[in-house]
């Protein structure tokens, strides 16, 4: 009887917690990218993240893009052609992962990175997509639908330099800068 209860409880936990269901939560390497970019290594103040990880479909914008015609940063087309050619954007895999809703694990995040449950307060991040020494991460601030508030949505490109991930460039999807009048 006790065994049945335990098994039932285990099944319930697995079903209610998709991040555990297939063991596909963010890897330690992916957490390292986030911690290096947003944690103590590069900042002094607390940063607030929305607790749910953005779905992998946020990468669809750049899947299959031609670097010749895409506004990647640095103006160095050669660098980014190589970068994209080498990059393992496995669309099938990304789509399959999209059906799960991941939650950032507080204990795996740097102490300066805090989580917010409110959609209006925290920065939205995707899991980093890593290929060799480069990584892409989707980044979005709150207020997407409020045209009278500033807003940023972009892909951040990070590079692993001597074991540490550093910001290397960005592709802006939307950047809105609202100027208040003097009251």
């Amino acid at each position, binding site marked *: 009887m006790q065994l049945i209860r335990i098994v039932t409880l285990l099944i319930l936990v697995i079903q209610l917690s998709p991040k555990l269901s297939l063991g596909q939560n963010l890897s330690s390497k992916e957490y390292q990218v986030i911690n290096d970019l947003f944690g103590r290594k590069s900042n002094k103040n607390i*940063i607030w993240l929305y607790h749910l990880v953005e779905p992998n479909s946020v990468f669809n914008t750049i899947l299959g893009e031609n670097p010749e015609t895409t506004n990647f940063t*640095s103006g160095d087309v050669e660098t980014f052609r190589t970068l994209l050619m080498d990059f393992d954007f496995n669309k099938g895999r990304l789509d399959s992962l999209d059906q799960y809703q991941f939650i950032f694990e507080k204990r795996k995040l740097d102490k300066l990175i805090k989580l917010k449950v409110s959609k209006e307060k925290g920065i939205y991040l995707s899991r980093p997509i890593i290929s060799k020494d480069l990584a892409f991460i989707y980044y979005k601030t709150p207020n997407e639908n409020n045209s009278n508030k500033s807003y*940023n949505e972009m892909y951040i490109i990070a590079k692993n330099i001597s074991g540490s991930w550093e910001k290397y460039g960005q592709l802006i999807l939307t*950047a809105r800068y609202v100027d208040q009048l003097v009251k």
Partner: protein
Amino acid sequence: MNGEKKINHYNIDVRCATVYFPVGYQTCSGGHCTTTIERFVGETSCSGSSGSNFIYNSGSGSDGRPSGTPDGGGCSTCEYDPPIIVRPGIINNLKNQPCASDVFKEIKKSKINNDNEKGDFNIVDEVMKIFNESTKYDYIIVNSDDGNSTTGKFNRDTKTTEITVNLNNDYLSRASQLSIARTIIHESLHAYFVYKLQSDQQFFINFELKYSEFRRKRNPNDNRGQHELMGEYVDMMAYGLKSWDAEFGNGKLGKPLLDDDYYKSMAFGGLFKDGTNIPTDSFKALVPSGSDRLKIIEIIQNEQEGINSKGTKCN
């Protein structure tokens, strides 16, 4: 746009002239409309010594060559090389605001004297040049009921980053021309930063190093960081504004120009923490005295409201 070329056909002296007409569409959302020119249709009229006339109707393809067939004449073997039409990089979509539209056109034209210490870098010239020449960045200016703002957006279809400057209708109805010129310069600087952040890696890295901390505040976006950075451009904005005023504002009306400090005060417009009247750190560093900052804010507000303003009202 006209192109004229002599065509050697059956050894007859034939001359052709092409006129291109823009073909596009208008989309409206959020209270403002955007006109997109998709292509140009060329009409080529030819006349020759034999008295024959030809008219071609054609769209401009990727190589700019006409694809239509001649109408009214036998000129299918003509060697014809019409001019390549360059897609406009700066689009003025200001509607029902002729005064603001004129200010924008004037800002694009205003020149800076090279004898000024900042004269080697006219920020307005620089911004307009970038968007005039770039095939990957478009600058569009519109008006709507939304606040004064600059929005950069990556358009997947055209593979361009469209940077849209919006001017608020209510503000345009009250502000002086000087204030509107200042706002256009300010928003153009946002556009310039969007361009630089994406196309200049060193600029991006420097910006991240100096201003990424501001994303950790209550409003986690880059607006605050850009307004801090603008402190470095206050002199340039002031001189750009003075140049416009000399050529198209008070100077054009035969009035004396304003003190340099007045233009500089105007250049601090927008350098506030998001949603407040609290000056940015760079504003405070440049003007440490609180009473001096209050005087500057008063000048900005007077021009913004068109009350006790030294610039002429737009409407």
